[in-house]
C-alpha cells in the first residue's frame, strides 16, 4: 500500500486551473522530487496534500486514509517545511521548537527539542530570538520544526533555497540518512535540478497543472535521451 496516493487531483481558482487531474503514489521510504517551472502547480499540490487547500476534484489518501475525513490523525504523522514561511520572530529557537513539540504532542518534548537542535546545528543558537537568525539559520529552524514529530511523511517546498552550499549539502545528506534510517517518505520541490537528481528516487514533472513525466531520474534521462534533469526540463517544456 502506498504511503501517499493522489488520484485525479484538480484545483480551480476562479478562471485559473492550477491542477488538472494529477495522480501519483509515494511509497514508504521514497523521496519524490516534484519539479516544474513557476506556476506549474507544485506548491498548490503540496498545500492540497497538507489540507491547506481543498481540491475541486480528486482524492488524497495518506497512510491508507482519506485526508478529508482523517485530517488530524494524518497531520499528526506528517510535517512540512518551506523557505516561504517562517516561525515567530520574538520566540527563541528553543521556544519555537517547544511550541511545536506540544502542538504535535511529542513524547518527552524537551529531549526531542534537544535532538532536533543537534540535528540542524542549532544548539549554539538555542536562546537566540528567531528575528536574529540569518536566512539560512531560519531555514534550519524551519527544518528542525518539520522533524519535531518524527514525521513519516515530510513535505518540503524548496527547502534548500537560501541555504549556503554547505548547509544545503548537509540537509540533503540528512534527508537521505533519515530515509535510510527511519524509512521517512519525502515529497519535495526544488528549482535546483542537480539537487533533485542527487536526492530523489523518483521525479514528477509538472507543467501547467499536468504530470508530463514521472519515474526514476535515470530512467527518465534514458527515455528522453538526455544527460541531466536540466536538459530534460527544457526538452519537456519544448524550449
Amino acid at each position, binding site marked *: 500500500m502506498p504511503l501517499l496516493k493522489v488520484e485525479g487531483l484538480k*484545483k480551480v*481558482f476562479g478562471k485559473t486551473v*492550477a491542477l488538472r487531474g494529477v495522480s501519483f503514489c509515494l511509497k514508504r521510504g521514497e523521496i519524490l522530487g516534484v519539479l516544474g517551472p513557476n506556476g506549474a502547480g507544485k*506548491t*498548490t499540490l503540496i*498545500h492540497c496534500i*497538507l*489540507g*491547506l*487547500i*481543498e481540491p475541486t476534484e480528486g482524492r488524497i489518501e495518506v497512510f491508507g486514509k482519506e485526508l478529508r475525513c482523517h*485530517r*488530524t*490523525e494524518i*497531520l*499528526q504523522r*506528517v*510535517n*512540512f517545511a*518551506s523557505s516561504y*514561511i*517562517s*516561525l*515567530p*520572530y*520574538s*520566540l*527563541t529557537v528553543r*521556544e519555537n521548537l*517547544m*511550541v*511545536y513539540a*506540544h*502542538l*504535535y*504532542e511529542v513524547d518527552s518534548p524537551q529531549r526531542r527539542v534537544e535532538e532536533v537542535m543537534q540535528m540542524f546545528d542549532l544548539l549554539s543558537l538555542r536562546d537566540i*530570538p528567531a528575528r536574529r537568525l540569518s536566512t539560512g539559520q531560519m531555514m534550519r529552524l524551519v527544518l528542525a*520544526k518539520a522533524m519535531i514529530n518524527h514525521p513519516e511523511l515530510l513535505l518540503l517546498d524548496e527547502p534548500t533555497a537560501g541555504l549556503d552550499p554547505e548547509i544545503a549539502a548537509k540537509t540533503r545528506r540528512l534527508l537521505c540518512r533519515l530515509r535510510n534510517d527511519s524509512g521517512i517518505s519525502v515529497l519535495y520541490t526544488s528549482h535546483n535540478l542537480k539537487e533533485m537528481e542527487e536526492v530523489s528516487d523518483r521525479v514528477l514533472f509538472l507543467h501547467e497543472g499536468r504530470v508530463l513525466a514521472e519515474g526514476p531520474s535515470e530512467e527518465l534521462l534514458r527515455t528522453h535521451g538526455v544527460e541531466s534533469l536540466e536538459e530534460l526540463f527544457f526538452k519537456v517544456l519544448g524550449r
Partner: protein
Amino acid sequence: MSGRRIWAVFLRQLYLYRRSFPRALEVFYWPTLDILLWGFVTLYLQKSTTGLPKFVAFFLGALILWDILFRAQQGITVSFLEDMWARNLVNIFVSPLRISEYLSGLIMVSLLKVIISFVVMSALAGMFYSFSIFRLGMALLPLVVNLVVMGWAVGIVTMGLILRFGQEAEVLAWAVAFLFMPVSAVFYPVEVLPPMLKKVAFFVPSSHVFEGMRALIEGKGFPLLELVKAFGLNTVYLVLSVVIFILIYRDALKRGVLPKIGE
C-alpha cells in the same frame, strides 16, 4: 480535543509576551492610562455636577467593565494577528491542531489578558479614587462573565473577517468592539437612547450588563432579569460566532487563501 495542543497555542503567546517588552507593556499601559485619564475627568465632573449621585461609581465601574469586554476581544483577535504577522499561520494550520483547539488556546490567552487588566484597573481605581469594583458584590462575577463571553464572540467574528478579507482588515481588531459601545449604554442608561437604538441595544448583551451594574450601584438589588437576557444573547452569539468562523475557514480552504494570508 487535546489539552496539549491547546496549551501549545497558549504557550506560544506566553513566550511572546515574555520575550517582547513592548507587548508586555501594552497589557498594562492602556488600562493604566484609561483609568487615570477618565478617573480624573470623572472626579472633575463630579465636583461640577451636583444632580448626579454616585457619579464616580457609575463611571469607573463602567470603565473597568468595558475594558474587560475590550481585552477579551483583543486577547482573541490580536493573538491571531500575531500569528499572521509572523507568517506562522501556515505552520499552525498544517499541524494536527483543530479549530476548536485553536479557539480554546486563544480563549486562554484572552482570559489571562482580562485578569491582568482587571487587576491593574481595580487596584488603580482603589488607590486613586477610593473606588472598589467589588462593591458590586457577588453579581460582579456574572456581569464579568457576560462581558468576557461577548468579547470572545466579537473577537472570533473579527478574526473570521480578517481571515476573509486579509491583512487590510486588521484595523477591525481595534475597531469592532467600539462599534458596540454606543448601544452598550456603557456610561449612560439605555433610556437616553433614541427609540430605534433602544431596540438595537436590547440585542446587545453588554447593554444588559451595564444596566445591571447601574441597578446594583443604585441599590436596586441583584439584576437577575438583565443577566438572564445577557446570558441568553451571549449563548446565541458565541455559537453563531464559531459557526461564522468555521464557514469562513472552510471558504478560505476552497479559495486557497490560507497560505497567502498575511502576505
